[in-house]
């Protein structure tokens, strides 16, 4: 049932569905991915906005302090109390310091682990620190914001790790001379927490332009510039990948089994472009942050799962549906083919029956022909008897009557020879009839392979005298065939009669011959016997030639038996004979033999 044509048909209809569904579902997957990317991009934008807002507050805070009338050499207690209060209130404040123009701390508030604010007496020289260097040239209305890094005290990273950044604003005296700067340290922990991804689909990473990782799902890889940590090789690779990714433009990149999205943020530029009026504050900061979001393939796959599952279900459904349809169709076709086969079988049966009928019909026809022939022979026989026997008997009756009435010896002498004549004729007739009846009666005539050459030669010997006298020459043209299945006795009789006739009816005006020529027409063997004798007028005698006691030449002896017997003998073995002749132009007999002389069913009348 599942032949190759079925499979081909199935594939032909299934493969397009398969391709289309895969293309369609891939499109869906792509759309889904795009959507996820879009969501992530929005999230990243939100993060930068969040940061922007945060820094705006920070800037406002530090500017507030810088705009206070501060004399670094002589801080009044109200200012100090205010500062302490602020530090206590705002979690994010870590340190509050005032540096002189040389970068030396002149005032400092610390927060201890219990969030308690102390006025530090341990003032340090920060002139070497990068943030002092980067901020010492600040002008009025300018605020410096440092990078985020781990807090260091006395040149050592504070532990537990404390990510911080510093904001610095210049301070001026009443004469508008720059006298130092306010430095506020912010704890970045809360900010970084806020910047962490809230989405379960993605992981956020932030790097800065100092090749530091500020925020990462794995905290071990953050602030590597300051830490003395030992990382695994994969972490190192990952870190360097991250850094290199962050150098690029805002983009989305497929890497490490997921999609990376990155967004760059120049803190100062962003802020300054938004606050560009004359009296607004300008941020000075070297910091550029890169937000990166990683959406792992596993997450994406989770989104794609329904599509893939839907596709699978659809394909299975189509598979089963198509298979069912094709099987149903196949069954229908099979049924049809069976039906056609049955029709064809019955058709073959009918044809065979018809052929058998035809054969039977042919046999019947042949039989019918044979019967007609026999019937004709019987009628002929009847006629011959009635004509040739009735007359003499009547004559005998009349003669005997006459004899009984006769009175004189003369009358006796006249009548008795007549009687003798009749009896002679009757006995001759009976002799002839017997020959004929013998032919008619033989239902199964013994046939053998008859050598025509031999029969002709033997027959010619009987007429040696005539032949030797060159009266008639016997010519044989038996190249095509010279043997056939026939009765040898009949054949001899026929050939003898033919030679006898040709001698009898030869022409005295020319050299005579009798010619035997064999050939075949279709499957039938044909023997042509011709001479150049006196011939016969067929217009006069055409229908009489083969009849008994028919004579056509007064001056030549003969009783009209030969051709009659020849025809009877031929017909007894399903052969036929025709004649063609013109007076004084010779005669030609054509004998057509049947392939199987004793089987009437093979006999097809020669026309």
């Amino acid at each position, binding site marked *: 049932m599942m032949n190759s044509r079925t499979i081909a048909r199935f594939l032909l209809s299934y493969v397009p569905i398969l391709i289309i569904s895969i293309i369609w579902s891939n499109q869906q997957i792509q759309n889904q991915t795009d959507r996820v990317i879009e969501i992530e991009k929005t999230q990243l934008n939100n993060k930068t906005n969040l940061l922007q807002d945060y820094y705006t507050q920070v800037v406002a805070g530090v500017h507030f302090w810088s705009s206070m009338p501060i004399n670094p050499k002589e801080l009044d207690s109200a200012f100090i109390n205010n500062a302490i209060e602020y530090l206590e209130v705002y979690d994010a404040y870590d340190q509050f310091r005032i540096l002189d123009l040389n970068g030396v701390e002149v005032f400092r508030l610390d927060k201890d682990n219990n969030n308690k604010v102390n006025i530090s007496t341990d003032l340090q020289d920060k002139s070497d620190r990068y943030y002092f260097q980067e901020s010492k040239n600040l002008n009025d209305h300018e605020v410096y914001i440092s990078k985020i890094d781990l807090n260091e005290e006395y040149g050592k990273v504070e532990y537990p790790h404390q990510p911080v950044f510093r904001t610095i604003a210049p301070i001026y005296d009443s004469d508008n001379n720059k006298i130092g700067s306010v430095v506020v340290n912010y704890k970045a922990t809360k900010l970084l927490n806020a910047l962490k991804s809230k989405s379960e689909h993605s992981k956020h990473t932030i790097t800065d332009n100092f090749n530091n990782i500020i925020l990462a799902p794995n905290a071990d890889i953050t602030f590597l510039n300051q830490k003395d940590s030992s990382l695994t090789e994969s972490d190192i690779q990952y870190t360097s990948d991250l850094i290199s990714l962050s150098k690029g433009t805002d983009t989305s990149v497929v890497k490490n089994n997921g999609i990376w999205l990155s967004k760059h943020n120049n803190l100062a530029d962003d802020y300054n472009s938004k606050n560009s009026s004359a009296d607004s504050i300008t941020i000075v900061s070297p910091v550029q942050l890169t937000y990166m979001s990683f959406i792992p393939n596993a997450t994406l796959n989770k989104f794609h799962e329904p599509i893939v599952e839907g596709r699978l279900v659809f394909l299975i459904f189509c598979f089963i549906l198509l298979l069912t349809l094709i099987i149903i169709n196949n069954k229908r076709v099979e049924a049809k083919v069976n039906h056609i086969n049955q029709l064809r079988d019955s058709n073959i049966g009918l044809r065979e029956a018809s052929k058998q009928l035809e054969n039977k019909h042919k046999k019947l026809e042949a039989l019918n022909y044979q019967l007609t022939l026999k019937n004709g022979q019987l009628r002929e026989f009847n006629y011959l008897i009635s*004509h040739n026997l*009735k*007359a003499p008997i*009547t004559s005998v009756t009349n003669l005997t009557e*006459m004899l009984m009435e006769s009175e004189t010896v003369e009358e006796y002498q006249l009548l008795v020879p*007549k009687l003798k004549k009749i009896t002679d004729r009757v006995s001759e007739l009976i002799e002839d009839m017997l020959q004929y009846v013998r032919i008619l009666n033989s239902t199964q005539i013994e046939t053998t392979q008859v050598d025509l050459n031999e029969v002709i030669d033997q027959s010619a010997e009987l007429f040696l005298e005539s032949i030797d006298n060159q009266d008639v020459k016997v010519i044989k043209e038996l190249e095509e065939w010279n043997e056939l299945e026939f009765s040898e006795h009949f054949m001899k009789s026929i050939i003898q009669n033919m030679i006898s006739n040709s001698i009898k009816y030869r022409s005295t005006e020319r050299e005579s011959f009798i010619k035997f020529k064999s050939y075949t027409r279709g499957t039938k063997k044909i023997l042509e016997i011709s001479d150049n004798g006196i011939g016969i007028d067929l217009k006069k005698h055409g229908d009489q030639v083969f009849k008994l*006691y028919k004579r*056509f*030449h*007064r001056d030549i002896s003969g009783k009209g038996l030969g051709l009659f017997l020849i025809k009877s003998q031929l017909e007894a073995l399903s052969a036929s004979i025709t004649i063609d002749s013109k007076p004084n132009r010779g005669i030609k007999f054509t004998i057509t033999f049947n392939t199987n002389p004793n089987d009437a069913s093979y006999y097809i009348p020669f026309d």
Partner: protein
Amino acid sequence: MTRATTFHLIDDDEVYLFITSKILEAISPNVKIQTFQDGELAINYFKGIEGNSSDFPDIILLDLNMPFLDGWGFLKELKTLYPGIEKRIKIYVVTSSDREDDLGLATEFNELSGYYVKPIKKDELETLFREIVDSNLESN
């Protein structure tokens, strides 16, 4: 003395010719009988007389089955030789053939006056003879 009635007997049966002649002679002494052993000999006679009507017989008794020229052949040739001959000669077929095709053929010849199947009996011949004599008398 009335003219002798002339018979032509055409038959290949020699004995039949003898017997029939004897019977006819017995019926009337005033008959003239001429016999022919086949149609060809008979037609040769008619060719020979060259239309001399005194040599025509009154009556022909014609056999059908004969060598050289049979009864039908004789009739055909006689017809072409002398059209309307039936008005001058009464021709009867006398044959041993009672075959239907011969009988059927006989009806196609207007020249025929009758058809007898052998053996023809003495009284039949007598009737025949009388008819001829009577008709001859009338015509005279």
